């Protein structure tokens, strides 16, 4: 080995090391977030007034007066997310099917960029859209007495619109990954376009689609700005989507926005809620990975 080749090896190692360090940083940050969440949540659960069972099953959330049941917040989060999904999934899926199976190149060239614009709108704009367009719309449809000014339905619908581009793009990828041979085989057996799409292509793309829906769900659960502006600013355990109710993220944003002083139990509570959110979205993402790995069908 000559000295020159050793030099060459060293120089080629430098960029590799640098890139490795950057990759390491992202892992360190993730671990750091988890550690801080767990440590601060420990402070919260260590408070004599708090116990884990009461936290998980209590029906009232008002930490200032020692009410630590997080069900009202969870309920509001689930309400907005379910509403978002029931708008986002059918519409997003239809868009995806249309784009990949039916659309001509010209319509695609228009539709795709429009979707991308939708994906690029800041969520605070969606928040005001919910408050100044969706809520008045709901109120004119169902009546002012029925729909409160802040309500989970309006926030949920707008989150549905917000996750729509994500669902549409990812679902289109999943559908596009189904091999052409399957479609041709279906046509050869005399299937119509519609039968081919719904009986062959969609089932074949199901793993990718389920992963898409779960990722969109975890995005909807974590959405903050829209619910902070439009869903309501007080915990409220209600099944009525036209009532105001505060979600987990909405509460965190209100408290961290200067609402209470550090070292109080309310302040610590936002870390416990952050941990809950982290666990929920992390689990959803894990499941979504599992699904796409396990049910991923190899055609060749």
């Amino acid at each position, binding site marked *: 080995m000559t000295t*020159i080749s050793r*030099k*060459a090896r060293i*120089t080629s190692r*430098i*960029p590799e090391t*640098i890139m490795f360090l950057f990759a390491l940083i992202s892992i360190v940050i993730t671990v750091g977030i988890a550690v801080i969440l767990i440590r601060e949540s420990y402070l919260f659960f260590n408070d004599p007034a708090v116990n884990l069972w009461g936290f998980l099953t209590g029906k009232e959330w*008002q930490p*200032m*007066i020692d*009410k630590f049941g997080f069900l009202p917040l969870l309920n509001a989060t689930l309400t907005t997310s379910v509403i978002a999904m029931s708008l986002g999934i059918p519409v997003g899926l239809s868009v995806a099917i249309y784009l990949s199976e039916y659309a001509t190149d010209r319509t695609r060239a228009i539709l795709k960029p429009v979707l991308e614009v939708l994906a690029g709108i800041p969520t605070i704009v969606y928040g005001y859209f919910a*408050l100044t367009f969706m809520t008045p719309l709901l109120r004119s449809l169902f009546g*002012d*007495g029925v729909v*409160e*000014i*802040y309500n989970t339905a309006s926030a949920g619908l707008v989150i549905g619109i917000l996750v729509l581009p994500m669902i549409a793009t990812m679902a289109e990828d999943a559908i596009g990954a189904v091999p052409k041979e399957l479609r041709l085989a279906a046509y050869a057996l005399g299937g119509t376009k519609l039968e081919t799409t719904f009986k062959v292509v969609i089932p074949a793309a199901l793993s990718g689609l389920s992963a898409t829906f779960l990722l969109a769900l975890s995005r909807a659960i974590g959405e903050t700005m829209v619910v902070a502006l439009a869903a*309501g*600013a*007080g915990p*409220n355990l209600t099944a009525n989507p036209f009532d*105001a109710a505060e979600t987990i993220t909405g509460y965190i944003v*209100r408290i961290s*926005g*200067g*609402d*209470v*002083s*550090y070292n109080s139990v*309310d302040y610590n509570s936002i870390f416990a809620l952050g941990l809950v959110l982290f666990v929920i979205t992390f689990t959803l993402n894990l499941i979504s990975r599992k699904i796409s790995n396990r049910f991923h069908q190899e055609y060749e």
Partner: protein
Amino acid sequence: MTKRIIVLLLVVMAVLPVIAGGSKEIAQPSQENPMAWMEGPSVNGLPGVNPIKVRGNIISAGSSTVYPLSERMAERFKEEGYSGNITIDSIGSGAGFERFTVAGETDIANASRPIKSAEIEAAKKIGRNPIEFRVGTDALAVTVSKENTFLENVTMKQLGQIFSTAELWSDVDPSWPSQPIQRFIPGTDSGTFDYFAEEVFDKQFEPLLAASNLQLSEDDNILVQGIEGSPYAIGFFGYAYYAANAESLHIVAIEGVQASAVNVDNGTYPLARPLFIYSDATIMNEKPQVAAFIDFYLSYVDEEVIGVGYFPANEEAIERGRTAWLKAMGM
């Protein structure tokens, strides 16, 4: 080979400062006399201020009630030539004191209640001695939507029921509609919340928080919007937010007394309360811009306070602030 290494080094050098975080602010040594802004005729005993000659930035935070007033004063300060930056965060009196006394990040704390003794203790630990300056008086406004046709006047007792145990309006008074009361109140760290709990619930905040249909926000505009939204909604906040939204809100008289300059001045309006700003002698001397701004504030606040939607403090209270200012500056 060496060329590559050089390129690589250059890249690393370009990236490093970004990783290391923003550039540090360089303190600019001022050649001129830091007290050069003291100019012109004195106003009520305080030295005259020439904002053009004031250098440096000012950081303040605190009450959302005091916020519009401080903002107006800062605006006027700039209009008259001040070229620095004034930060005013609207985060609630408690959080404002927290930043002023614990973290020590701010030069001025805005507050809609007097400082608590625990907060003074905290301040002493970081070497600060809070000085109080009275800047005005607020009449806390209890408001309902313009569409509300039944609520003109409440007694203090009814007010207590409305904001705690009553579910329906008819629970408080049978002649009122049997509709759920929707409550919109300031968040738990706001001086307005504290003040209301103190006056209406005898310092107990539990009943206020235990009420159903409760929306809390530190942002008074969220409350305003919520109250406008339903004839069965009710809420309270500083008078300025009512004044700014008078065409969509209706203010309720308390014990038959309307919130007005006369009733606030003669003490008959039950929910009138003082507004303050706080600073510290060391800060005022080390950062003359803070002293200048407070001087300016105390000198001209009476000309602006009504326009913002509050009421002037009585002369005696403002004079105490002026005396404190002179003492802090060793004059």
